[in-house]
């Protein structure tokens, strides 16, 4: 048999196969639980230990803490928490080092925006980002 007719036979065989594509923007894309999307931040869990900012390979996390409002309690609470998604590479190291799981990954990956400024996500935004949060966070 000629080589190209074999190829044509393969193509014809594939005509009747089930389709493998997703109707993506209309249907949400199924993603596994471990998927690394934009982080969700729990301000009440954070102990301002700075480990996430230190481990970040691209230095995209900026955070400040303030004294606990209740003078009886020791330690700090979070004041501001910003992630710059212009340079964040979603490497998952910040969630890996967080001792209280105050920062976790979600399945939300749609980061496109109309301006660069909108890629600076602050504490409020990261706190409200509470859909599709990763369930099992540590191996």
């Amino acid at each position, binding site marked *: 048999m000629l*080589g190209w007719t074999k190829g044509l036979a393969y193509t014809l065989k594939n005509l009747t196969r089930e389709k493998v594509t997703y109707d993506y923007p209309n249907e949400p894309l199924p993603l596994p639980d471990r998927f690394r999307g934009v982080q969700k931040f729990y301000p009440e869990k954070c102990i301002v230990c700075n480990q996430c900012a230190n481990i970040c390979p691209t230095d995209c996390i900026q955070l400040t803490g303030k004294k606990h409002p209740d003078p009886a309690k020791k330690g700090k609470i979070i004041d501001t928490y910003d992630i710059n998604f212009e340079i964040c590479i979603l490497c998952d190291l910040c969630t890996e080092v967080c001792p209280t799981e105050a920062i976790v990954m979600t399945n939300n990956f749609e980061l496109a925006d109309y301006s660069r400024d909108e890629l600076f996500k602050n504490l409020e935004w990261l706190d409200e980002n509470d859909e599709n949060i990763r369930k099992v966070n540590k191996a």
Partner: protein
Amino acid sequence: MIRTEEMLLNVGPQHPSTHGVFRLVLKIDGEIIVEATPVIGYLHRGTEKLAENLQYTQIIPYTDRMDYISAMTNNYVICHAVETMMGIQVPERAEYLRVLAMELNRVASHLLWWGTYILDFGATSPLLYAFRERELIINLLNELSGARITFNYMRVGGVKWDAPEGWIEKVADFVPYMREQLKGYHDLVTGNEIFLNRTKGIGKYTKEDALNYSLSGPNLRCTGIKWDLRKDEPYSIYDRFDFNVVTREDGDAYSRYECRLAEIEESLKIIEQAAEQFPKDGETMAKVPKIIKVPKGEGFVRIEASRGEIGCYIASDGKKEPYRMKFRRPSFYNLQILPKLLKGENISNLIAILGAVDIVLGEVDG
């Protein structure tokens, strides 16, 4: 008398067939290439220099971005280098997960090459078939590591995640499916007369040339030299698997094509055996200090990535960051033979020759 004149032609850096930002300055006489000068560096990010200010764990996501088509092998080489220098024993289960991840990634990488190489010749459908199967692998690796391309899966001393439930079974199921599809690939392309005419005898070089240009991977094995680090210098647990080193004799674009497709089969053999032998339980992480400090000294390891030998050199002064880090990036070395191959060739063979080298620009530029 016909007067001929040399012409300067720029191919790239934004050319679909250069698979990235690669520029070729061609001096052509009619249709014949007189001289070809590759210009690289458009994707240079200075990984090696950046690494000097980063802790070892922080460097791993950067290695994902070098050879972004097979990031698992890059992850492995840096972890392997640090582990070798620190003398860390990696748990068995982690080694199996690493091998499975690397071999799956090798298959995905060769599939992407196969699809795009045929696309360079103008055939669109093989690309779609290749991506259909590659997507399954990417999904498997996504379930394992949480990312589709930049996995950041391996850590010094083990792996980040254990296999999710049912993952090994899914991998085992994938092997026979992929074997079946490979047969279809051969039907679709390997016997096609147009394809054969365009690749046989094109971009030919000898064993000596291959060695002199320090080529590695399928680019070396296509000349008949049997050299595969998985067999010749077994690292990880590759000595436990039964597989062959694929070689071809001709050294042309077609033998490189055959080598890569046959390597997919060999990788599938390894995946099958690894899934079978996969330990039921065990740790996935060795005992590693929280802050990794490599002892003072130098170290170099090399492994077989999908494009050839990838090496990692670390010079450490005992701190948590390396003093100097160097990656031997196979695409960069393999690309060096290109000007020699192109000289005297017809310009219509340019893309067939460039594609057969299989470069990833992230790796060429570092």
